């Protein structure tokens, strides 16, 4: 966002390497899903998605993401989502089903 635009603009190479990196990560994600890794499938998929999100946010949005405030905003969004999922799951994972009357 600085006024001297010339140097702030990254060379073409930067964008194409990033796209390549993202496509490779996508391949990893799809590839790992086809292998029977049990619970690791989910963790790998989400980890790769998280990494791709970081790449997109860091590099493609670097102009506006330079300031600490904008990073804080994005991170807050994800933290609040984690609060919703985390505490709601606390209920679902700790439920003990009531036996039906016929038992």
């Amino acid at each position, binding site marked *: *966002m600085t006024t001297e635009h010339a140097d702030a603009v990254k060379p073409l190479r930067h964008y194409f390497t990033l796209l390549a990196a993202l496509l490779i990560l996508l391949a990893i994600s799809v590839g790992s899903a086809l292998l029977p890794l049990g619970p690791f499938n989910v963790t790998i998929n989400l980890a790769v998605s998280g990494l791709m999100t970081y790449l997109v946010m860091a590099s493609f*949005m670097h102009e506006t993401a330079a300031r600490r405030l904008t990073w804080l905003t994005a991170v807050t969004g994800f933290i609040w989502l984690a609060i919703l999922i985390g505490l709601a799951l606390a209920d679902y994972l700790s439920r003990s089903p009531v036996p039906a009357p016929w038992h």
Partner: protein
Amino acid sequence: MSDAATVAADHGHDGIEEHFDDASQQREAAAFGMWVFLATEILFFGVLFASYTICRVLYPQGFAVASRHTDLVLGTIETVVLLTSSTLVMLGLRALQLDRRRAATALLGSTAALGFAFLVLHGFEYYREYTERLIPGLNFHQEGPQARAVELFFCLYYAITGFHSLHVLIGATLILILTVRVARGAFGPRRHTTVELTALYWHLVDIVWLFVFPLIYLIGRAG
């Protein structure tokens, strides 16, 4: 804040609204405002991701069975389409900053085209699912012990991909409008905040899909 009278004098002509002190304050405010809006979008989709997580915890097998009904190939192509469109929109913005208007128009135009291509691919998926009777509420006839969990999955599937496609449609149309305005020279190296914010919005739409894709298409594929 300089005296109110002088501030009013030198504003207006280069797009700075009179209640801002200078251009950098306005751009900073616009970008920060967009990021706050992106945080609300994260939470807007967050509800669907939270519901997905909880329903999947309740019915793991059902979701695995249901996920196999989705089309992995089309899903992967759509992800590639969105990733490339994200790159193109950034290249378009870069071209704008270097004052290469024709390149910028072409790049932004192709971004919009890829956006609409994504929607068309989604249309094919929905049609195929319609023929396989997988649309809850419309015609949904599945059998087997997991039938209800599969229907639950597809309720979530249509909610998530529906709202996401709506956002892709909004994003693609906005970029199309910008392409026309860029072609007419409305933006240049010193004035491209609107293009920047639309690019931010397009990246958000891409990021949401980066999470939707594995959760919808990739579970239950192993073995």
